[in-house]
């Protein structure tokens, strides 16, 4: 059936997009216990920077495929600069304070960065369609689909596999896992938690920016770009379990497919159903479906 395939594909594309954006958020929460509202800014800045640079490149006569490279460059640039700015400039002074206060500080930072976008990039929307146009369309199940959207799925899979491998097999990954599992114990064992925090936050920022940068060619990047995605990624992270990468995957899949179903079959439920799931998970299993197991503190 056409519709089933459409729903599945739409769902997968949206899930992939959500996963890429939420991966950074869940890692930051898992390691630092911070629900980072500024993640929306990383996303928006990534999109704007990528769109802007792609536009520049196109005007300078660069080939369309350079856009792909630019996307990754933009993400790394935004992640490094904004991530470091935020962590060193604001967060590092707040770690011993109330976690809700920290969330409010990230909310304040988000608001500031939103307006800085207007100052830097202006109020007019950006269209950096070149990479998407380049890939054209492919026919699946009788309907033409954007190939670009499908590559999103590929990117998500790569990131999922990559982060799993990184956490399980690399030295840094194991350090991160240790801190997620038990911060105090890690500190007691001599782990330089401060450095871990910086790396984590910048990494999370890069991933958030990547989400925005990669999606930029498919939409018009305009003011207010990050606002909706913030709450959606919160929902994903809450559902999957804060701090769990497989959880973010499952959460993204759940939200993505449910939303695709809603959009195609029950459009009046589209928005509300995601938050209903989030509420249900929070009520019955606040740690999320896949929370990392915590050691029992007697």
């Amino acid at each position, binding site marked *: 059936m056409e519709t089933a395939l459409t729903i599945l594909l739409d769902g997968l594309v949206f899930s992939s997009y959500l996963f890429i954006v939420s991966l950074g958020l869940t890692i930051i929460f898992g390691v630092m216990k911070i*629900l980072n509202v500024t993640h929306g800014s990383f996303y928006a800045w990534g999109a704007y920077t990528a769109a802007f640079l792609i536009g520049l490149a196109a005007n300078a006569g660069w080939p369309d495929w350079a856009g792909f490279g630019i996307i990754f460059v933009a993400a790394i640039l935004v992640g490094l600069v904004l991530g470091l700015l935020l962590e060193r400039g*604001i967060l590092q*002074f*707040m770690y011993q*304070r*109330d*976690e*809700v*206060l920290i*969330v*409010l*500080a990230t*909310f*304040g*930072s*988000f*608001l*500031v*960065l*939103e*307006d*800085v976008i*207007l*100052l830097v990039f202006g*109020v007019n929307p950006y269209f950096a369609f070149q990479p998407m146009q380049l890939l054209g369309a492919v026919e699946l199940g009788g309907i033409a689909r954007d190939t670009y959207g499908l590559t999103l799925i590929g990117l998500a899979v790569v990131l999922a596999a990559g982060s799993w491998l990184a956490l399980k097999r690399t030295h840094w990954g194991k350090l991160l896992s240790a801190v997620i599992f038990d911060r105090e114990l890690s500190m007691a064992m001599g782990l330089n938690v401060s450095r871990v925090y910086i790396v984590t936050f910048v990494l999370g920022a890069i991933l958030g920016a990547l989400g925005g940068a990669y999606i930029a060619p498919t939409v018009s990047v305009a003011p207010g770009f990050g*606002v909706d995605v*913030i*709450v959606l990624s*919160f*929902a994903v992270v*809450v559902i999957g379990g804060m701090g769990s990468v497989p959880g973010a995957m499952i959460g993204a899949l759940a939200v993505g497919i449910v939303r695709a179903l809603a959009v195609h079959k029950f*459009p*009046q*439920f*589209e*928005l*509300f*159903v*995601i*938050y*209903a799931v*989030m*509420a249900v998970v*929070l*009520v019955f299993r*606040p740690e999320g479906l896949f929370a990392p197991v915590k050691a029992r503190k007697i």
Partner: protein
Amino acid sequence: MSLARDRTVQGLTLALGVMLIVAALVPSWIVNQLLFGFSRAIAVLGLMVLWRTRLVSFGHALYFGLGAYTVALIERYAQVSDAFVLLAAAALLSTVVGFLIGFIVRRYRDIFFAMLNLAFSMILYGILVKTEALGSTDGFTIEAPTYAGIAFEDASQGKLALLCLLLVVGWACAVGVQAYLRSTLGRLTTAIGDNEIRVEYLGYSAEKAIHIKYVLSTFLAGLGGGFMALALGQVDPDSMVNWTASGELVFVTILSGPGSVAAPFIGSFVFEILRTYAFEWMPHAWQMIVGGTLLVIIFFVPGGLWALVARVAERLFGARAGAGPAAAGTGR
């Protein structure tokens, strides 16, 4: 010490008298600012009570919006125009919903409490945006209400009447909350924030106390939302129910500071004035101002505007203008 001799209550009563006179004298654009500011202040009063227990809700726009939409829908579909009925209905519906949801949220703290409230508010947002009969993204306009049968032909007179009603109701709410905060249950607010285990071991259920607090806050938020709807003459989901609206309420709560029941009124009014001017002079810097102010307060002035006002008053009058030695305990 009875309520009538409580310094804060006396101050509030004096302020009410002054404000009623001022309202009659100032131009209508200030009347509007006062209307918007104080409507929000009533909702913030409720959030302040929660804040003193170290609980922050990222979803109180749920109740604010419920109050606003109740007014809009009853006026439109039930053809009722009396302000008292509309506002009472707004407060009632929010309180009932708050009472029910309270059973769930009272078990959570910190970030989970905040997020759960957020989730519920976004459910309402989703429903409103997608339902035509409820106005969808455009919302509704609201006609000017009548006041116990009296209709005001002149719009600015009508607004003045609304403001007088708002001032009296606001005063009543502030005095009520002050009485609550002086009661044992109210003092538990700070105690629970400090040490829930101890409260349990003294023989009282912390969850029950939080439930009561929560219901109080939803009542106030619904009432504030109702007033806002009448003041604005319209409702729409984005400005009243979206998470950004909840964020605004939280911001004003932090801006005002938890030190006194008068704080939300000052903070909300400042917020309103700031917003009007910021939009006029620097339309693209409003969010930056809000965000920057939030950061400044978190880092340098955790007691909010009220702490600043109290310090100045202390210098000028040599007495503590706040509500007591332990009143400014939150925001650590």
